[in-house]
């Protein structure tokens, strides 16, 4: 698993450098969540939606690790003519739904889960949303609907990296007490270290009944590269050659 994590993080770094793209921090915080899902949890008929579409590169690198897309395709990220844009595109093989504007992925997932439940199909729906998306009204509209209809086939993973676009979440609009808010909206709520594959697997596989499952995944924005961690500069900046080299070295050492 370390190999996959290392490769994904290295590719995120390399391609951000090459394409001069932003949102590295947001990509690095969800690597373990994606690895746990794609390598351990998702079955053939399950659906996965990345609602925080700005972390598209993390998803593309994971899809490459899973051999959904070719290296040539992955390397086209952010260049002219490619469909691998900076926000998730359904035109990329293996991608379920395009996102980019926050607060869209959860309603889509609720629709899919509702369809499966109505038709007594066993497909499950997994969606990753960001902590910034908690600001969106649609998040709460969807939660109310999902819990009212007991969508137990829906798993919502909140990438709680504590930093949104401009500042720390706590300084922008505090979302705490998050767990009790989610509980009061009728969800089964779990908290987990979002960088611990073993814990993630355990919670993701845990049987779920009567309510949608919400996993608050405590993560670190920019995880894996010391100078990017917990620094919202890396929501915007792309690495220069020196930062790329230092970052790649750190990743190789950490995930050897």
């Amino acid at each position, binding site marked *: 698993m370390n190999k996959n994590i290392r490769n994904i993080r290295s590719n995120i770094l390399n391609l951000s450098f090459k394409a001069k793209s932003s949102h590295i921090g947001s990509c690095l915080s969800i690597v373990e969540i994606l690895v746990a899902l794609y390598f351990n949890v998702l079955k053939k008929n399950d659906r996965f939606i990345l609602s925080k579409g700005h972390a598209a590169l993390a998803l593309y690198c994971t899809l490459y690790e899973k051999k959904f897309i070719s290296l040539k395709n992955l390397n086209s990220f952010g260049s002219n003519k490619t469909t691998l844009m900076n926000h998730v595109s359904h035109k990329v093989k293996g991608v379920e739904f*395009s996102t980019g504007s926050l607060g869209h992925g959860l309603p*889509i997932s*609720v629709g899919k889960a509702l369809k499966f439940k109505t038709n007594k199909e066993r497909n499950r729906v997994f969606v990753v949303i960001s902590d910034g998306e908690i600001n969106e009204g649609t998040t709460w509209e969807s939660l109310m609907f999902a819990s009212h209809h007991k969508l137990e086939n829906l798993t919502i993973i909140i990438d709680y990296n504590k930093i949104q676009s401009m500042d720390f979440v706590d300084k922008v609009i505090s979302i705490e007490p998050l767990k009790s808010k989610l509980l009061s909206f009728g969800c089964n709520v779990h908290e987990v270290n979002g960088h611990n594959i073993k814990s993630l697997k355990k919670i993701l596989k845990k049987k779920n009944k009567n309510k949608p499952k919400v996993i608050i995944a405590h993560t670190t924005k920019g995880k894996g590269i010391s100078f990017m961690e917990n620094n919202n500069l890396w929501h915007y900046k792309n690495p220069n050659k020196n930062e790329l080299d230092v970052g790649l070295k750190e990743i190789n050492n950490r995930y050897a």
Partner: protein
Amino acid sequence: MRKLFIKELTKANKKKNIYLIINDLGFNVIEPFKDKFPDRIFNAGVSEQNMMGMAAGIASEKCNVFVYSIANFSTFRCAEQIRNDIDYHNLPVTIVSVGSGLGYGNLGYTHHALQDYALMRCFSNMIIMSPGNNNELVSIINYIRKNPQPSYLRLDKNDQIDKKFKKIKVEPGKIIKLVNGNSKKIILTTGNVQNLALKIRNKKFKNHSVYSMPIWGMKYKIKFRNLIKKFDEIITVEDHLHDGGFGSWIKECLVNTNIKTKIKSKFIKDSVINKVGSSDYLLNKYGPK
């Protein structure tokens, strides 16, 4: 038209692949569908954005979804969900809006649908379906069942009863003759103002033919050019503002062409309507003349 729409939709749902999502609206209208398909109808509550995203989610799993609401709620309130989730993904969601134009006259400006064409016709995959009578509505439902795609169905609030049902066939960009007259000069209307178009003809343009165009949209502009050039004059009649409306759409069809057809437009007065009144009163005061 609301009850007829539900009746036809209930009839059409043979394979049960239709979902009807309502916006906490439709009392004494949607019941026939609910009685027959209780597991295919959901009330999204008062949450238009979640409703529209959810509709896209269901549609992405090979189902046809009809979202039923009042025109102002199911358009501007959830415009981005329509753009990103439905139109971008080209999903078979039909947005059914009741109360076209000034249909909810005395509910006030918040409930008037005067800019809805402008919004809905700027989406690449979206078609506008605006029936002017029950025959057109029945044919439209038949068309959209056979050709599911992003679509905006704009319905009159009133349940008018046509004297006689006549089977017709509607298609995108096709015009349907209502009154015979001059073959080169026509009045062309869309939606719920056919009677008004006929009145205008009888008052001012007695020799013009009158046609209706129930289905149109961005992707049919080029096809429609060929039809426009057959006429010397087209007078459009609609219950929408001129900006972004049907008449503007016709004019846009002619941009960068040498087609000489003269286009005139009749529309709702372009200002905020602060007065209250019945739809007939408001249409008479602010509508096309």
